[in-house]
């Protein structure tokens, strides 16, 4: 297995770049301004670089090569036409500060994507300035807080989240200077309305929900929850991580949500890139549009313009978010069109329920009944191995494991989200593998406990990594 760092293949005087001849020469900088520390950067040839990173890529696993059933991540196919469009020079070579009349095409992308997302979600307008889902959440909560402050209400400093919430929810509340109140779920996995009523008071700015929730269950009481929360003078925030289940079927705006974020890299097929760049556009009802971060794209007399307004929460990005990611989402939306959006909701939910029915003899199903786009199991029925062991054994079969140990409501959680792009054959293969692993756990649990066996590295010592962190090359020379 190739095991070199780029620094380890460096040889003096190799180079991998070319610059044109220049006729301009000039004086050197004054010595007092110059760097005195040596600069130990690699010296490699172009082929060295290409081989090095190609070999690194071979130590990875992408959606293009196999099933990736990570719950709440929506690892769907990343269409290649999206990549082609995002690399058009007319998009790539635009400076963000170019005069409006020279970037009408770019502004059109923002404007029209906002309109399409608004139509799909039932809200009024979206800003693409947030760079990722968590960033969108923080932005949305800033809008929530600003809404109350503008009304002259300074008491509303708390946000309610269900106990099934993703960690970014309470963390985003903290980023905005708000406190979190956790409300428990019922045994059916939905928000406990009785408990909710107890915590609603004049200090509550709003509630953050995802629907379906992180257990893959639709919050059927959502309308009642919305009424209660609104009657309390609070707002509803929708965490769009699970929007895939509802795309083309139902709209958060119609359920009473006031603010939401979307993860373009989940629901709208833009690539995850190994951890970014994503995009977390934030959408609001008409009453809150003036609070969206600056600047926004508006259309005036057929022309697109930037609007910066003083009432806005301010800026959350240096420029306008991840524009080239939005170009991909736009392309995807234009590819699907009104004829196809509902297939996303129907087929993602079909695939998840099919998996649920097929595995419930082997894996504990804490919540029976229909799920939506993802299904949550609580470990092996036999309990002969842990969820971690099952996940590591799945690696041996060439799969990326589902999400494990989240949500925190159960102890051996396995969260499986197939998405709508997977065929019945792919899903049947996965089901058969999961069943095989369950059977292996009964017959020979050690096989799981010492897994993975077939990967290029086996279980890694993360305690060692945390105790004495080695986080750069110089730490080891």
């Amino acid at each position, binding site marked *: 297995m190739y095991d070199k760092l780029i620094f380890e293949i460096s040889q003096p005087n190799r180079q991998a770049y070319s610059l044109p001849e220049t006729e*301009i020469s000039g004086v050197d900088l004054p010595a007092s301004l110059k760097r005195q520390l040596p600069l130990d950067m690699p010296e490699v040839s172009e082929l060295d670089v290409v081989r090095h990173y190609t070999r690194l890529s071979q130590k990875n696993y992408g959606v293009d090569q196999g099933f990736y059933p990570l719950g709440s991540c929506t690892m769907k196919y990343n269409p290649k036409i999206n990549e082609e469009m995002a690399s058009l020079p007319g998009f790539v070579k635009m400076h963000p500060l170019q005069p409006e009349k020279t970037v009408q095409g770019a502004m059109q992308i923002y404007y029209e994507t906002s309109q399409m997302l608004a139509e799909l979600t039932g809200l009024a307008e979206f800003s693409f300035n947030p760079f990722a889902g968590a960033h969108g959440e923080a932005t949305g909560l800033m809008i929530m807080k600003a809404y109350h402050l503008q009304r002259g209400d300074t008491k509303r400093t708390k946000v309610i989240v269900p106990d099934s919430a993703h960690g970014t929810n309470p963390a985003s509340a903290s980023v905005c200077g708000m406190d979190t109140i956790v409300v428990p779920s019922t045994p059916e996995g939905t928000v406990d309305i009785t408990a909710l009523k107890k915590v609603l008071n004049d200090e509550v700015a709003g509630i953050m929900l995802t629907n379906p929730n992180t257990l893959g269950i639709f919050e059927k009481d959502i309308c009642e929850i919305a009424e209660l929360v609104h009657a309390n003078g609070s707002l509803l925030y929708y965490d769009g991580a699970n929007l895939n289940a509802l795309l083309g079927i139902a709209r958060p705006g119609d359920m009473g949500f006031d603010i939401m974020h979307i993860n373009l890299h989940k629901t709208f097929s833009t690539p995850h890139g190994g951890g970014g760049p994503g995009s977390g556009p934030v959408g609001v009802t008409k009453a809150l549009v003036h609070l969206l971060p600056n600047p926004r794209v508006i259309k005036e007399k057929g022309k697109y313009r930037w609007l910066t307004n003083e009432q806005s929460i301010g800026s959350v990005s240096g420029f306008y978010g991840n524009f080239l990611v939005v170009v991909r989402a736009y392309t995807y939306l234009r590819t699907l069109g009104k004829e196809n959006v509902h297939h996303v909701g129907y087929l993602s939910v079909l695939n998840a329920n099919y998996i649920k029915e097929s595995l419930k003899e082997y894996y504990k199903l804490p919540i029976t009944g229909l799920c939506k786009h993802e299904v949550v199991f609580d470990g092996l029925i036999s309990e002969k191995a842990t969820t971690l062991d099952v996940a590591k054994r799945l690696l041996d079969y060439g799969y990326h494991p589902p999400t494990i140990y989240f949500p925190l409501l159960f102890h051996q959680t396995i969260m499986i989200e197939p998405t709508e792009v997977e065929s019945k054959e792919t899903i049947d293969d996965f089901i058969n593998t999961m069943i095989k692993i369950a059977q292996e756990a009964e017959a020979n649990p050690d096989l799981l406990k010492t897994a993975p066996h077939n990967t290029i590295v086996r279980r890694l010592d993360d305690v060692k990594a945390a105790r004495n962190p080695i986080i750069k090359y110089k730490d080891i020379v």
Partner: protein
Amino acid sequence: MNKYFPHSEQDIAQMLAKIGVSHLDDLFKDVPSHVLHHGPFRLPQQLSEIEIRDEMAKIAAQNKKLISFLGAGSYDVYTPSVISALTSRQEFLTSYTPYQPEISQGNLQYIFEFQSMICELTGMDVSNASVYDGATATAEAMFMAVSQTKRNRVLVSATINPRILAVLKTYAYFRDVDLVMIPMKEYQLEKAQLGQLLDENVAGVIVQNPNFYGQIEDYTDISEIIHENKSLLISNVDPSTLSVLKTPREMGVDIACGDGQTLGIPLSFGGPYVGFMAATEKLLRKMPGRICGMTNDVDGKRGFVLTLQAREQHIRREKANSNICSNQSLMALHTVIYMSLLGKKGLHEVAMRAYHHAHYFFKQLLATKLFEQAVKGPFFKEFVLKYKGNPSLLNDYLLKKGYLSGLDLGKQMMLFCATEMRTKAQIDDFVKKVEEFSHVR
């Protein structure tokens, strides 16, 4: 059906049967019926690939490609061809965050290399795996200082990019952090004022180098009084200048942050770029975002994992250092490949080329006698000049000639930039057009 959905009618029927329902609609029977969306969506009709290409070409044609003499936070830099060939590989492009390290060693290793190179450029001890952009990186650094010192005021130099300042103000407002500006004098930080503003409430001081106006500043002397005050010094830096300029480490900076756009990332209408954060050893556990560490597997093989995750949102939740979940991974890879290709010599050569071209540009503009010098201090690749006419009209004229001219700062001040991409011919032509405009008037 559309090519993205593989299910046949038969597949659907078989799966519904297994589930025990008869129609796809039955899967949503727990959704209140008045919430279900009935009827078509007001969206455009679907487009085939051939039509998409046409449509997008039309939209892209509405954007004009210009030759840029404008910086102000986004720079026209050289992007080597190798980069997109590698970053478009599916294993990098379509993979998820490396939470399962056994099958993510590729991602983890390049993150480790990124962290190493950022530390090398800045001279700092530790770096994270990248954050969203330079502006949010600076805001995160602000919160690190507040958290570390348990104080609530942050001083910010007036020489910082106004767009970064806007983000700092927003984040500070919602967290009740008190931001106070340190005035500038002749486009440099007014150091005497800093001394007066430092007190036991100050968590940190934020500066930028080169600053928004292109000026190179040396913060070594102020780092001493800042540290005596038990505050942190945070510097937003342009990484492409660090092969040449005195590093944050050498100046006594505690947190170096900034945007990696100048490391080969195209203009992209503002994004995606990539933020980086590097700090002294003792701030390691206060760093937001992902961090990759080296370790061994059960067989003793070297490997990499995400580490120190207990500080992060998915574990620490409301007590996390930040709410950040993703990073800008693929853009970090972009810059790692750039830094590998250019290497020690190339980074230096590209930086000096930008420096020389900008200085040539500066001289040529002054030689027209249409500008007055507005700064005395040293600059890197951006500079401020006072135009004797109307900058807005000048810029309109230059725009018609295909040039993106300097930023109109008001009061006839203009911020110009020349990177390694601006040739002598382009610079000479731009200057000629400036003269033409003035004679035409």
